[in-house]
Structures are given as C-alpha cells and as structure tokens.
C-alpha cells in the first residue's frame, strides 16, 4: 500500500534520512522504532508531505506522492497524528474535530463521522465545547487521533502517541489504535519511543538508526532480537 524507497530528506545542509526503504501493506500495523534523532519523525513528515524528500520515491497505491503538497496527500487517504499532538489549543474540541473533517467533502458527514470518533473515545463527547488546551495530555492525544480519523483515512500515521502520557492512558490509546486497525480497517504506520509497546502491537517493525533502516522483521522477532533488546528494550545487556 505504501512503498518508501531510497528516501533522503534534508534540513538545510543536514541530512536526516539517508536512503530509507520501508514497506507498509494494506491492513498492517507497522512500527518504526529508534532513538532520539534517528529520523523517525522526519520520515513520517516526509510521507505526509510536511517535509519534502530530496531524493527517492514514496508510492501510495501505485501513485508517487513524494512531490505532492500535504493537503493533497490527506485527500488521498493518509492522515497524520503529529508528534506532540498539536491540538488547536484555543479552539473547542468540536472545532478541532471539524477541522479534521475539512477534506472530507468539507465536513458533510460530520455527524456520522464524529459519532464513530465518540465510540472510540467516549470522553471527547462530554468535552465538545471545551477548549482543546484544557484537556489532559491523554485526552489531547485522543482528540488528535480522533481529529485525524475525521478525514476517513485509509492509512493513519501516528507519531509517538505515548509521548508524555500517563501509563494507564497509554494502554487505552494503544488499544484504540488496535481497534482502529482491526474494526475500521485502517492501515497504521506508527513511530514510537516506547519500543516494547509498539512492537507488541505491530505486525512488523523497522529499526531506524542515523537515518537508515538497520533491522526489519515481524514485531515478535524484533522483540526477541538481542540487538534490539540491548539498544531499545529493558532487560538487554
């Protein structure tokens, strides 16, 4: 479904991605793990079109999207939940959701789609008229995911959904991600610092080191891989 090949991305003169190859098949959950500064977020931003790839190709449904502007890519069915949630703090929760639906025929199906989001995250329904900035970190993450779901994506890019969130809520959010994948048939490409959680959830995983993929494999295999354990999981040597 998504085929990233030999992608290189720069920030000015600094090369963040050095020829990344990643493949995400329809219906999968794929996790990308790696340390700080490895280029994980850069890769997601490059897929979503917020950053531009200098070289390489990103093919989505046999269409090259590497040169498309971000809003076109959302139209094609890729929605991103950006790192740090990026909720519109001074707008209401409802406004946030409506903005998520802005590509979805300008929000014609708001009632129906928002209902699906409330089913996923019931807490949002009670907070519709509240400002985004007044929500707790976990609720904001739920809102960010819900907002992205309003565009009816076929693929969801999640950038560190566990960042700065209470452990109990992290479990809940990961359960919702699984739900989104299984029930709503949305393909998920997930970037995480919390490698254990991510690999447990994912069908397959990639490890990114210094802008290059170093290891790839099934989630379970990566969990048991001694190199991965040593570098990213507790209990390594």
């Amino acid at each position: 479904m998504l085929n990233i090949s030999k992608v290189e991305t720069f920030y000015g003169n600094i090369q963040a991605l050095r020829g990344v190859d990643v493949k995400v098949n329809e219906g999968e959950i794929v996790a990308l793990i790696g340390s700080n500064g490895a280029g994980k977020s850069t890769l997601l931003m490059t897929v979503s079109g917020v950053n531009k790839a200098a070289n390489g190709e990103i093919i989505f449904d046999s269409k090259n999207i590497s040169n498309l502007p971000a809003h076109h890519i959302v139209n094609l069915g890729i929605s991103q939940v950006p790192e740090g949630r990026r909720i519109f703090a001074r707008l209401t929760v409802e406004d946030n959701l409506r903005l998520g639906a802005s590509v979805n025929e300008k929000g014609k199906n708001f009632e129906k789609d928002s209902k699906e989001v409330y089913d996923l995250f019931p807490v949002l329904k009670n907070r519709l008229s509240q400002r985004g900035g007044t929500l707790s970190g976990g609720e904001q993450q739920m809102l960010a995911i819900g907002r992205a779901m309003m565009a009816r994506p076929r693929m969801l890019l999640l950038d560190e959904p566990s960042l700065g969130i209470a452990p109990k809520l992290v479990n809940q959010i990961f359960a919702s991600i699984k739900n989104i994948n299984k029930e709503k048939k949305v393909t998920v490409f997930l970037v995480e610092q919390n490698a254990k959680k991510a690999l447990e959830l994912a069908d397959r995983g990639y490890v990114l080191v210094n802008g290059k993929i170093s290891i790839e494999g099934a989630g379970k295999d990566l969990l048991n891989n001694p190199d991965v354990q040593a570098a990213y999981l507790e209990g390594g040597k």
Partner: protein
Amino acid sequence: MGKDFIQKSLKDSLLTGIIALALFGPIVGLRTVAKNEVLVVEPKWFIVLLIVALCAVGRFFINIYSYKKEQRRGEASSLGKIIANFLDEKGAQIAIAAIAFSIIFPFMPFADRYWMDIAIMMLTYIMLGWGLNIVIGLAGLLDLGYVAFYAVGAYSYALFAIHFGWSFWVCLPIAGLFAGMFGILLGFPVLRLRGDYLAIVTLAFGEMIRILLLNWYELTKGPDGLTGIPRPSFFGLPFKRYPDEGVETFHTFFGLEYDPMQRIIFLYYLILVLALITNAFTIKIRRLPVGRAWEALREDEIACKSLGVNPRNTKLTAFAIGAMFGGFAGSFFATRQAFISPESFTFIESAIIVAIVVLGGMGSQTGVVLSTIFLIGLIEVFRDFESYRMVAFGGAMVLIMIFRPRGILAKRKPTITMGK
C-alpha cells in the same frame, strides 16, 4: 505586605526615578531659548522633578498592584475580569442595546455636527478594526500595513467615480474587489513568513502603496490629491441645496426643508451599515470551514497541513477578505471627505488600527468597539490640548498593557458552545 516587599519596591521606584531622570533630564529639562540674539540653555528642573516624581510614585503603585494581584492569584475578582464576565454573560443584550443606541443616535438632542463627525470617524475605525481583526485576530497574521488597503479602496473609488461617473453603489464593490486583489498581491510574497518578519514586510507594503500614490502623478495627482470626488446620493437622489435643472434631490423628493445635516446623517447610517455587515460577516465566517481554518492556522500551521488544510489558500483568503473590508471603508472615507491625498494613509493610521485590535483583545469583536471608543475618544477629548494628545495616547496604551496585558476583552468565547 512584608517589610521586604516595601524595601524592594522602594528601591525599584528609586531606580525608575533615576532612569526617568536620565531620560527626561536632557529632553525636557534643557531648553534652548534665544536671548539677545544668542542661544542660551534654560534649565527647567522643576518640570523634570515633577515627571521623575510621577514616574517613581507610579512605579511604586504598579508594584503594589502586581503584588496584590500575585496574592489573590486564582481568585477572579479584578475589575477587568468582572467587566469581561459581565460582557460575556450579557453580550447579546449589550450588543442589541448598542446597535439600538447607534440607530437612534443621530436623533438625540445632543447629536450636533461635532458629535456626528466623531461618531462617523469612530464607526470608520470600528469597521477597519473589524476588518483587520480577520487578519490579525482570526488568522493570526500581524499586518502592519493595513492602511494600504484603505488607501487602495479610497483611490479606486475616487478614480472610478471621477473618471467614469459611476455611482457609489457601483464603485463600492469595485473598490472592495481592488483592495482584495491587493490583499492577494501582498499575500503571495509573505506566504512563508511569520511573526516579526511578516510584520516588517506588511509594514513595507503599506509604505510602498503610499509612496506609489505620492509619485504616480498622472493617475493620482500625487501630493495634490484627488478633488471633486462625488458625494454619495440617496439611491440616486443627491443631497444638494441647489440641484441641477430637472434633478430631484433628497429634500424635494421627501418634501423636507434642505438641511446639510441630512447628508451627514445619511453618511452615518451608511458607515453604520457597512460596519455591521463587516461584523456579521466575521461572526458568520468563524462558523464556516474557511473561518475555522483561519483560526487553526493561527494556532498551529503544521497541524493544519497534516489535516489537509491548504495553508496557502487559507492565508490568501484571510488577506483578501480583510483587505476587501479595508477597501470598503476606504471608499466610504473617499466619498465622505470628497478629497483624498496620500497624507491620509500614513503609517500612523495602520498603527492606530493595529492598536485598536490588539488593545481590544485579539479576535474580540466587542473589544474592537471598546478600544475604538477609548482610543479615538481620548484623541478627541485631547483635541484642545494638541501637544498632549500623543502623551495621552501613549499613556493609555501603557495603562492597558499593565492592567489588561492581553487586551481589554482577552477572554473570548469559543466559536461553538453546547446548548444549555
């Protein structure tokens, strides 16, 4: 209040006094006068002393104020908050009352020519404030050159009216269209800019338009300005004492005595309607996808992109629509004055409009009205003391910054609220 605090703030006041002395000593204290055809320096230490004492004492009171504010942090009790809450709760009633008052205003016994002129000027600034509020308050784009669109509107109205003889109602939309086009023209180069950089470019744009008007003599008559701009007519009926042969005028049509106030009252209602349209439009558009996208863009551009909001179109529409209302206000200005020159479109105008929006509390429509009444009213009150006007203006701004740092009405209602 602890001893520590008193000591500290006394020290602070002393320091303020010293700074004031260093500043005002040479500026105010030393004055050159010609005595026997020789320039001599005449010190005016008494006035300097007065100013320094004022600064030091003022500083002391500000310290006490902020100390007390610190003490009751979390408790909502300050006067500003009470007013803001009151306006929030009774917002709708107050708005209706204000509109009702402004409709009957021309027929009040005290509404003479002077008051009508002030009211018209205030309404013009309110309209400009509301227009700029779209750009600054909603879309979060700090535009310091808003007067450029006011100028484009005024000049395009004047030129079309003079050269083609088209009526106000035909020229008004054209002027708005032209201003909107200039808004897009400004929008394109600044798409990637934000914050202070954007402010600098918009400021330069405002100056460029003024200098263009000053130097394009063939079209704009440069510094001489454009004269003989047609006055507005009441849907084809002119306001004239001695009309041309066979032309019916406003007063003959309605069988009234001729009175120059008729035209003033008509102008008043004209700007009132234009301003209210601007306001209604802004309130409405905030609930539409475009308006929501503006506000989202103000909050977070990257999040907008990742949600499929096209930042380019969003910014351009904000600039264009904000500029369009500036253009409408400009054509009103032109038809009211019947004479325009680049003099009327200097940077200080932009600064006043930005001050109105920012001091009102960015994005607050009521705040724009309050700060216009406050600022323009203040300028008018001090009209007789010409040389103190700017002091009062600056002082008012400093006071608002101290007591209401986020604007008179910083608390803004969410766009959507749940039904009660």
